[in-house]
């Protein structure tokens, strides 16, 4: 007699169970198939090509009516199951029951809906089945329609690409810092975003949806940061959760998914489950490969054969035509793990392999994924790769042979091959220059301009030199920023400007960083370069700052901090002094000291007290003195004409005006100024980064002094008749320093490299250049001149400075 099998859900997993079962026992089963969707099994993975118009529904049907009829399956499509009666072993829909000997639950998953206002408006769709797909196709019919996709994961991006191909204007909102963060690292995420933007898809990362707007139907999406996007269609693709309601109501064991054992049996041995609705060994499943493995095991269990489900690693590919990415295995960093990174900025290629104990354990690739399946095989098989490690990243084609000569490629180039795209220089012109006596990179740049603009081809020019000159070519010994790159600070600064690189992943990809996300040496430097060059575009990264700048206070040897409020030009008053004294008493601050920069230092403040001390000082009008920053510290002054019988100008007033103009700006290293009212120089202006000495006829401005590790007198920049010009020259000089110096070079070190004559030509002699420098400085100040104390006087910031938890009251067992 035939055994009765009831299946809930006609999806890809249960479809595969049917195929295995009927192949083994074509006559053994009496099968009833329920499906809430009014159709049978189709290939859901191919919905994206249907959305984009590259395929039709008919193309993706896996089991048609004839197939179900041929196997004598009772199809109850369009009927949602409402109840399982486990005692009498009957499944009910609203249209009636179906008895079973064995039951298979394959209810799949439901899309996660963000609980925001407006989520129920017409025009808000999810992306799980053919009905969703058709709804999106219908919405895209209107010319000039706008779509917002919430969620930058696999599904969301496929939806975005499909809607774009249908002619809609598409914006993707993604909560995390980069796209597909579960499958890609930041470098690959950056390339993907760049690719999508080239296709006209707008990408908004770190975007948290606040509300979906509209009256009768959807009209737009509002984010927490108050950005708004118009929308005729909103597609929510933020994730899925296992559809377990029917199993929960039947009192089966359900955790996040329906719990199954290795044989795919639920807590009731007559009920099996497969697909996205199950949880096996604490794990959920969303990709098709493990679902097919489950189907095979479930069929074997039904056939009373021994089989056990063992989840295997899966690899991810994005089905967007023309976007090439691949990710597999575990690509987190860790001790004992090593990265091999390959970047080809010109082609937009990034490959990263993660190796542990001579085994490949993870791979992320973008732009060229041809070797993906080979790498995936190495991961799955746990192959020992030590013998091929040197050439591993180049793929299977390079294994087993001798190492390729790196100069062979450049040697093979014909003379007319272009080397430098910026200046249109071909290989022939470079070799001609070498024949005429050029022996260094600098010579080639001077004669041909090759590599003198954006600099990307520097390596290639050096290879031409090395090939032509042989051992006579010595690559100049340059000091790279750190082990992550071969480039110097100066190279990186130049390329950030020339190539308009505006984020850390952009710099690391386009300049071929050898690590995936930098180190404590390069990250603070890059963070400064990016915020100095792109104040409007780049967002300051607190986690790439050293402790003092992150916490806006100076850390001391015992882990406490010092707090220094700003005293403009060294001036203060009883109200400020009283507030400082009160704070010192209230927070039991152990030491109070007058600094060399004419202000007061509160030493020994506990971290959790910092925001409270700041709030108290703020209330008296005191702001951060930035005594901890690579930025403007103090402007030291003497009392000038107000009180001094020798004073020639209002030195205190000029000092205050300079400090008010410059405070809050970030610079490559700390910057200290002073203004003295007469040549007696009581403010010691002649050993400051910028020192102004007032005389009867005007203002003598000197730069590049030092009185720290080195002792150096300022060099004369200019003498000007008016205070206004003195301020202009100072601001222009500081901006020139911000734009050109390497991170952690004080102005005097930078001056030693570029020379005072070059600086004078930019700042003093060229009025247009000076005005442009001042304008760029003021633009940056419009973003960065904010009191960090006031920003942290909020309850949230105060909580962030306090411990996450206090367990000192808990007793040990």
């Amino acid at each position, binding site marked *: 007699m035939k055994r009765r099998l009831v299946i809930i859900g006609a999806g890809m997993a249960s479809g595969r169970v049917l195929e295995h079962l009927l192949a083994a026992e074509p006559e053994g089963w009496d099968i009833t198939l329920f499906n809430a969707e009014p159709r049978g099994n189709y290939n859901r993975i191919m919905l994206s090509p249907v959305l984009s118009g590259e395929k039709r529904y008919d193309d993706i049907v896996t089991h048609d009516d004839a197939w179900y009829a041929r196997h004598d399956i009772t199809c109850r499509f369009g009927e949602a199951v409402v109840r399982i009666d486990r005692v009498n072993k009957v499944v009910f829909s609203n249209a009636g029951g179906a008895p079973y000997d064995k039951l298979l639950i394959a209810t799949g998953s439901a899309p996660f809906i963000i609980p925001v206002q407006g989520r129920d408006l017409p025009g808000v769709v999810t992306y799980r089945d053919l009905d969703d797909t058709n709804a999106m196709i219908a919405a895209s019919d209107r010319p000039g329609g706008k779509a917002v996709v919430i969620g930058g994961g696999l599904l969301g991006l496929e939806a975005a690409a499909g809607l774009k191909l249908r002619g809609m204007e598409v914006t993707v909102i993604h909560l995390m810092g980069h796209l597909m963060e579960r499958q890609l690292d930041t470098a690959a995420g950056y390339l993907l975003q760049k690719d999508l933007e080239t296709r006209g898809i707008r990408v908004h990362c770190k975007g948290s949806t606040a509300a979906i707007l509209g009256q009768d139907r959807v009209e737009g999406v509002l984010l927490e940061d108050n950005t708004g996007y118009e929308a005729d269609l909103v597609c929510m693709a933020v994730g899925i959760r296992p559809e377990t309601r029917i199993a929960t109501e039947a009192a089966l064991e359900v955790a996040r998914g329906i719990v199954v054992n290795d044989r795919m049996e639920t807590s009731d041995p007559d009920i099996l489950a497969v697909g996205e609705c199950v949880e096996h060994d604490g794990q959920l499943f969303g990709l098709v490969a493990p679902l097919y493995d489950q189907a095979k095991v479930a069929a074997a269990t039904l056939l009373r054969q021994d089989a056990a489900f063992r989840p295997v690693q899966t690899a991810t590919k994005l089905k967007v035509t023309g976007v090439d990415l691949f990710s597999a295995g575990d690509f*987190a960093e860790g001790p004992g793990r090593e990265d091999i990174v390959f970047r080809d900025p010109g082609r937009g290629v990034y490959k990263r392999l993660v190796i542990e104990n001579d085994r490949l354990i993870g791979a992320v690739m973008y732009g060229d994924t041809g070797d993906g399946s080979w790498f995936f095989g190495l991961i799955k098989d746990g192959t020992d790769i030590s013998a091929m490690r040197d050439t591993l990243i180049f793929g299977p084609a390079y294994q087993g042979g001798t190492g390729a000569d790196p100069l062979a490629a450049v040697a093979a180039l014909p003379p007319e091959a272009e080397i430098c795209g910026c200046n249109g220089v071909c290989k022939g012109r470079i070799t001609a220059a070498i024949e005429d006596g050029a022996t260094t990179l600098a010579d080639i740049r001077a004669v041909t301009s090759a590599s003198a603009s954006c600099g990307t081809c520097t390596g290639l020019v050096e290879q031409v030199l090395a090939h032509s000159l042989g051992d006579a070519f010595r690559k100049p010994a340059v000091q790279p920023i750190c082990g992550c790159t071969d480039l110097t600070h100066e190279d990186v600064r130049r390329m950030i400007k020339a190539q308009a690189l505006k984020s850390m992943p952009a710099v690391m990809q386009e300049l071929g960083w050898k690590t995936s996300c930098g180190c404590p040496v390069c990250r603070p430097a890059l963070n400064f370069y990016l915020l100095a060059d792109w104040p409007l575009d780049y967002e300051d990264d607190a*986690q790439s700052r050293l402790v003092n700048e992150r916490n806006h206070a100076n*850390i001391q040897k015992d882990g406490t901090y010092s707090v220094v409020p700003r005293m403009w030009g060294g001036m203060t008053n009883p109200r400020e002094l009283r507030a400082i004294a009160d704070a010192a008493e209230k927070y039991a601050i152990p030491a109070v000291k007058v600094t060399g920069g004419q202000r007061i230092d509160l030493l020994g403040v506990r971290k959790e007290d910092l925001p409270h001390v700041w709030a108290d000082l703020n209330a008296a009008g005191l702001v951060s003195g930035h005594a901890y920053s690579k930025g403007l510290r103090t402007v030291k002054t003497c009392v000038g004409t107000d009180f001094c019988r020798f004073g020639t100008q209002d030195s205190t007033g000029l000092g205050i005006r300079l400090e008010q103009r410059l405070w809050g700006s970030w610079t490559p290293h700390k910057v200290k100024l002073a203004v003295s009212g007469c040549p007696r120089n009581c403010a010691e202006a002649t050993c400051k980064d910028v020192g102004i000495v007032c005389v009867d006829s005007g203002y003598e401005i000197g730069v590049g002094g030092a009185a720290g590790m080195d002792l150096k007198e300022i060099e004369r920049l200019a003498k000007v008749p008016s205070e206004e010009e003195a301020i202009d020259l100072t601001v222009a000089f500081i901006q020139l320093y911000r734009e050109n110096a390497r991170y952690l070079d004080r102005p005097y070190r930078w001056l030693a490299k570029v020379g005072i004559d070059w600086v004078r030509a930019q700042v003093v002699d060229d009025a247009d250049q000076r005005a442009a420098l001042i304008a760029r400085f003021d633009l940056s100040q419009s973003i960065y001149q904010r009191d960090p104390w006031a920003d942290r006087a909020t309850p949230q910031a105060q909580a962030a400075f306090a411990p996450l938890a206090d*367990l000192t009251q808990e007793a040990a067992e």
Partner: protein
Amino acid sequence: MSWLDIGALEDIPRRGARLVKTVHGCVAVFRSHDDQVFALDDRCPHKGGPLSEGIVHGHAVTCPLHGMVIGLTDGRATAATGGAEGAAVTTYPARVEGGRILLDAARLLRGRAA
């Protein structure tokens, strides 16, 4: 093991750390760029610097005081940055589940003597 919920993953910035106070001193809970969490005593073996304030890179942290590099998984100091043979910080079991950070309560309350 008894796991203790000490807060949400989102309470710690990526590549950052927050403190948990215990009777034995502070324990630093780190969140790496790939959203893994690690718990270590907040004291550098070199001169006691607060590791929680260092720059986190990969699964390591650089001490903010003098730059010793400590592995987050094993608490070991990298020799190249001045770590003596065997210099290490006590580590504690930590994991993330459903966006919450869980630490081993018993180990945490017993401290490094465990």
